[in-house]
């Protein structure tokens, strides 16, 4: 089910401001690709262009191509809603729907899309919560509001919600930045399991995390504040962290940046 993403010549704008410039890369299926780089270098913006969430921001605009297997996400006639059903997303801050119970949160993707059978719903919710390693903690209180969970549990709830709609790619925008080390470990273990089924792209500020969870790592940088962000290099994670081909990458990773 997992699919390959081919990006070529992608440039994204906020109004007239160019946020990222001419990015090309390939994201391999059934693997974890990590994006690292300093704040403001456009990692999150680039991530959001991969499931057309960038254009939700007022003034957001994209040029270039993003091929999912062989289909261009930005081709004419492509429905962004269909794109987002195929490419799910987990956000930096856990954002369960406050009006819904834990059960309804996980079922939200199916329920809100209106295409579900009642009998399937229980199975999907259980499977997704198990997939997100949350089932044992919440199985007795599925009807309680999701906002009553701890931060780490909420984030796993959001992951369960994202995988409940069976996407083919899962984008994660700094999913652990608001979590403590134990919850972070739980999510990292989860990422390791999920990559068997999904193509995963994760943005992180935590270099150790990128080294731990990812198969390939992309380093983004920007020339100066106000300049658009660029992709410096993308390679096997091991190479990036041991012997990167660009000096800037080594400087950033070893903390000698700037």
């Amino acid at each position, binding site marked *: 089910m997992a699919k390959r993403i081919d990006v070529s010549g992608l440039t994204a704008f906020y109004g007239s401001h160019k946020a990222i410039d001419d990015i090309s890369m390939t994201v391999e299926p059934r693997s974890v690709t990590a994006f690292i780089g300093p704040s403001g270098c456009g990692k999150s913006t680039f991530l959001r262009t991969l499931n057309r*969430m960038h254009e939700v921001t007022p003034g957001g605009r994209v040029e270039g191509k993003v091929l999912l297997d062989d289909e261009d996400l930005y081709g004419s006639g492509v429905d962004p809603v269909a794109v987002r059903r195929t490419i799910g997303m987990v*956000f930096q801050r856990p*954002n369960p729907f*406050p*009006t819904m119970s834990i059960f309804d949160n996980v079922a939200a993707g199916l329920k809100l*899309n209106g295409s579900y059978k009642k009998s399937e719903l229980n199975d999907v919710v259980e499977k997704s919560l198990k997939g997100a390693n949350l089932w044992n903690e919440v199985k007795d209180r599925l009807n309680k509001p999701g906002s009553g969970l701890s931060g780490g549990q909420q984030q796993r709830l*959001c992951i369960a919600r994202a995988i409940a709609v069976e996407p083919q790619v899962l984008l994660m925008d700094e999913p652990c930045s608001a979590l403590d080390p134990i919850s972070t470990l739980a999510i990292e273990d989860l990422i390791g399991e999920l990559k068997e089924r999904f193509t995963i792209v994760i943005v992180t500020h935590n270099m150790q995390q990128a080294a731990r969870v990812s198969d390939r790592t992309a380093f983004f940088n920007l020339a100066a504040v106000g300049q658009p962000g660029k992709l410096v290099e993308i390679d096997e994670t091991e190479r990036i962290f041991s012997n990167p081909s660009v000096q800037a990458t080594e400087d950033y990773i070893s903390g000698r940046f700037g």
Partner: protein
Amino acid sequence: MSTTTPTPPRTPVKRPATLKAASLPRWSPLAVAAGSVAVAVGIGAAAGLESRIQWGLIAALLFIVGSYVLAATVEGTRQAKDRLATSLVWVMFLLAVVPLASLIYETVQRGAKVFDGYFLTHSMGVVADEETGGGIYHALIGTLEQVLLASVIAVPVGLLTAIYLVEYGRGKLSKVITFFVDVMTGIPSIVAGLFVLSFWILILGFDYSGWAGAMALAILMMPVIVRSTEEMLKLVPNELREASLALGVPKWRTILKVVLPTAIGGITTGVMLSVARIAGETAPVLLLVWVNPLINTNPFDGSQASLPLYVYQQYAAGTDASYDRAWAAALALIGFIMILNLAARGVARWKAPKTGR
């Protein structure tokens, strides 16, 4: 306690010997308040001041000055300023509450005289101004129907306008709409009444009716609903919209199933408050619904009555019996609006996003 330092230009920092400071006991503000009231009563009685308001103002002044001076001598100037601000807040709070309390007291006291089951279930059909008896049934029916009709027009329009402005509106059109909503907020109710009068009754030639009044009330209601709903929708975190969109949920469904349920408590409160606002309008009703002492349950045919109008009429009639009826009707109107407000609060609490574990 000063220390000698080798470099003379730096003056040593003054530090208190202990972190504890003299402080007034907790009951001191109460004591000061009681003392100032006692002194004010003494002064008032001695100087022969007639008005209780003057007594109260003297007490308030004494309280403010007294608590400041007391705190300044015992605790120091910073604490004295704090006490000054606190006592000012209390005095202003009491000044604001006094008119409200006295209004409710007056209305209940005078209105309770004829306010009973008979009053609520009978009209003014065969009752002359100076006769006792009669009731507000016809006016109650009129107010309920007019407010309901106005809500049926204004609530959908107001809600949809607010949703457009917050969720879809970009550029010129939304700015123009916002501007006109602001202008509409400022329309005096009599102008809204005159507009419907000239358009509906004088130009189109329809008769006076509850429906005509409801249209004017709807004009007054709309901007209030738009404004309050807009604010509530803006409070919904963008992350929830993005979370829903990222699940592949279309925008309209996101608004319907995620945004609106999250804000429903606040939206309901706003709608209820706008209903309370128009329920007390007299001017457009006077122009458009006219007056009818008889029960007319059909708001689309012929003149009706309404509560605020009834109060006005009965008071204008100027007899003892009509005064009593005016106060009782005012009591009914206040009760009606208060029930609406309580209902709104109940709905807001019931629908608010839950945080329990």
